[in-house]
């Protein structure tokens, strides 16, 4: 109880009312508030700026990878040349299609006769272009004996020149395209026989040593298979573990021990999981190396702690009143969990899983340890075929010396980011939809 006389005395002494005192400190308080807001805004602005720089850099470097310089050549599908012994499909598959391209180039440039010049001329078309011709013949035999105009990918050096990455003014000795080739290119572009077209190969081909023939299909399929496997393994195991630990596990030292270790596992560097995978799955269980099945097992080990921790947090956040209501109705413990608690915790669990999946999609280090870093040309179609994944593909291309791999690296990063963003978008969409039901 305060004494009214005393407080009146105080006021008389100080000759200042509470209002005045508050008024004095007000400016200071307000400016502290303004400062705090300014710090926050600066932080966000800095973040956005870096994001902008990142995107400009990646898109600026990478967008040219989506087009590819192509040369239009009149190819005469010479049946006698391709299949002199009339061996049918087998010999057609083994035939020398590059010879057709060389012949066509010689016809187009009859003035080139010297051996060295001819080599330079032939080098303008990708050395992998023959495979494309073979594909055409194998799918459509009626081409044999006809002359057809075909757009074939140019060599990566020509492509770089067309995209302006090689300086025409530079001294010939330091330039990867010589003067004669420049002249031929100019002639071809006057005849509209050299143009930049959409680079479909980038999305349909596997890896290649020739940049113009390299695509991300193999890495994309590898990533997809690995992620599907990771999700199928880690989501059910993670959710079940979270439910058991949160709802059923007895409170004792052993449970505490498990809890502490799960939290520790979440902080273990991912390369350690790679080593574990190498020792366990490849050396001990003898599973085939470099395959999505190993990849998903290792990534499951890595994502499980994240999913379990997020799952437990979302189970904890379900209001106890719902549990009480269900238990009070006579629902058994498992019914309470499956009918009420789990559906309410699901959006949170999905968020956790998607964070885990996104981390798994971008993970490189553990996969290096289990051999998913190999140069693989074939597009994998099953869990047991050797494959690589998107981030590893980016790493491999970033390591390649050819100038044309620079833009492909950036383009692959763009594809990876696209998938990450759409995964998150899908997660948000699913979560919203799921929440609306309740």
């Amino acid at each position, binding site marked *: 109880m305060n004494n009214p006389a005393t407080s009146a005395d105080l006021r008389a002494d100080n000759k200042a009312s509470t209002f005045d005192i508050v008024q004095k400190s007000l400016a200071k308080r307000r400016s502290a508030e303004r400062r705090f807001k300014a710090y926050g805004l600066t932080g966000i602005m800095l973040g956005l700026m870096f994001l902008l720089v990142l995107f400009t850099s990646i898109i600026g470097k990478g967008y040219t990878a989506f087009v590819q310089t192509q040369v239009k050549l009149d190819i005469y599908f010479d049946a006698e040349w391709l299949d002199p012994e009339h061996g049918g499909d087998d010999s057609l598959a083994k035939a020398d299609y590059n010879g057709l391209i060389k012949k066509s180039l010689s016809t187009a440039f009859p003035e080139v006769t010297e051996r060295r010049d001819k080599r330079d001329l032939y080098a303008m078309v990708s050395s992998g272009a023959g495979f494309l011709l073979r594909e055409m013949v194998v799918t459509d035999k009626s081409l044999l004996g006809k002359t057809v105009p075909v757009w074939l990918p140019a060599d990566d050096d020509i492509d770089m020149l067309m995209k302006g990455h090689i300086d025409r003014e530079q001294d010939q000795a330091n330039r990867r395209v010589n003067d004669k080739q420049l002249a031929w290119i100019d002639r071809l572009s006057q005849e509209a026989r050299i143009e930049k077209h959409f680079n479909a190969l980038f999305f349909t081909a596997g890896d290649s040593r020739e940049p113009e023939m390299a695509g991300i299909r193999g890495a994309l399929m590898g990533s997809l298979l690995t992620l599907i496997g990771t999700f199928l393994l880690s989501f059910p195991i993670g959710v079940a573990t979270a439910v058991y630990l949160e709802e059923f596990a007895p*409170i004792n030292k052993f449970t505490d021990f498990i809890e502490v270790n799960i939290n520790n596992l979440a902080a273990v560097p991912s390369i350690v999981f790679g080593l574990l995978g190498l020792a366990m799955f490849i050396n001990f269980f003898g599973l085939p190396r470099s395959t999505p099945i190993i990849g998903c097992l290792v990534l499951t080990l890595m994502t499980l702690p994240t999913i379990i921790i997020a799952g437990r947090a979302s189970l904890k956040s379900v*209001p106890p*009143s*719902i*549990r*009480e*209501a*269900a*238990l*009070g*109705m*006579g*629902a*058994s413990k498992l*019914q309470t969990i499956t*009918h*009420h608690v789990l559906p*309410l915790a699901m959006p949170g669990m999905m968020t956790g899983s998607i964070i885990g999946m996104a981390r798994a999609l971008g993970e490189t280090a553990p996969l290096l340890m289990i051999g998913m870093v190999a140069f693989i040309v074939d597009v994998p179609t099953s869990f047991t075929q050797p494959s690589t994944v998107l981030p590893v593909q980016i790493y491999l291309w970033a390591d390649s010396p050819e100038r044309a791999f620079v833009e492909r690296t950036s383009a692959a990063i763009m594809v990876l980011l696209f998938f990450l963003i759409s995964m998150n978008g899908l997660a948000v969409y699913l979560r919203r939809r799921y929440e609306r039901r*309740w």
Partner: protein
Amino acid sequence: MSYIRESVPSHSMKRQTLSNVLGMKKIDRESRETVGAITSSDTRISCRNVNVFYGEKQAINDLSLDIGNNEVISFIGPSGCGKSTFLRTLNRMNDTIPSCKVEGEIKIDDKDIYHRDMDVVPLRAQVGMVFQKPNPFPKSIYDNVAYGPRIHGLAVNKTELDEIVQNSLIKAGLWEEVKDRLDEPGTGLSGGQQQRLCIARTIAVNPEVILMDEPCSALDPIATAKIEQLIAELKERFTIVIVTHSMQQAARVSQRTAYFHMGHLIEVGDTNQIFTNPVHPLTEDYITGRFG
């Protein structure tokens, strides 16, 4: 025990003198013996020497009480006196608290509910519960009411289930308000409607006893009046145990009233008698508003 004191406050002296003048049996204010008739003529629930512990702390001390068939009994008392704890021992909701330990004997229809072979699932189907805060499931109104019958398999087909849902909602006095929007979420109703939905959900499994833990404390007076009216109707068919902080409510809805103090059942008796002529000094203090 710390509450045993030698000196007695003066005002209590006066009352004791008054009691003596009126010729009533003098009861020491420090006595924790239950005053009044703990037995009932038509016993449904019988509790003998019940002790409840939360870890080291004793929440209920040696409590004995009978609850009769189709009667409304209300538990009153200051906060933390153990009335909710005791209510929750009646359908073993305390099992969910790991540190909680129950001793003594609680029999419903001569079955010991704390016996090793007793399963809580049929027990809770038999003894329904309505909580302090309305807690409908985040599902449709229909699914809320249909949940109990579904998990217990009380309806063989959709028509029967529809019937149970409709009857329960009618009995809970909610049917007219929600019959056109059974598919809407139960959480979208007003507080009072939600609580009546919870009551409908409870009576849908046709329990014998309904425990209500301060069912109106989160509701406005109009919603409270509706719930009280509902209790008056439900007592025809159910035994109702209600914990309440409102003495007016206890006086309005119940036939018997039990007063709890610090984990002891102090006095139990006819509601009229408790509110007009309490025997124990502590009961008198509480109902006259001296503390609590």
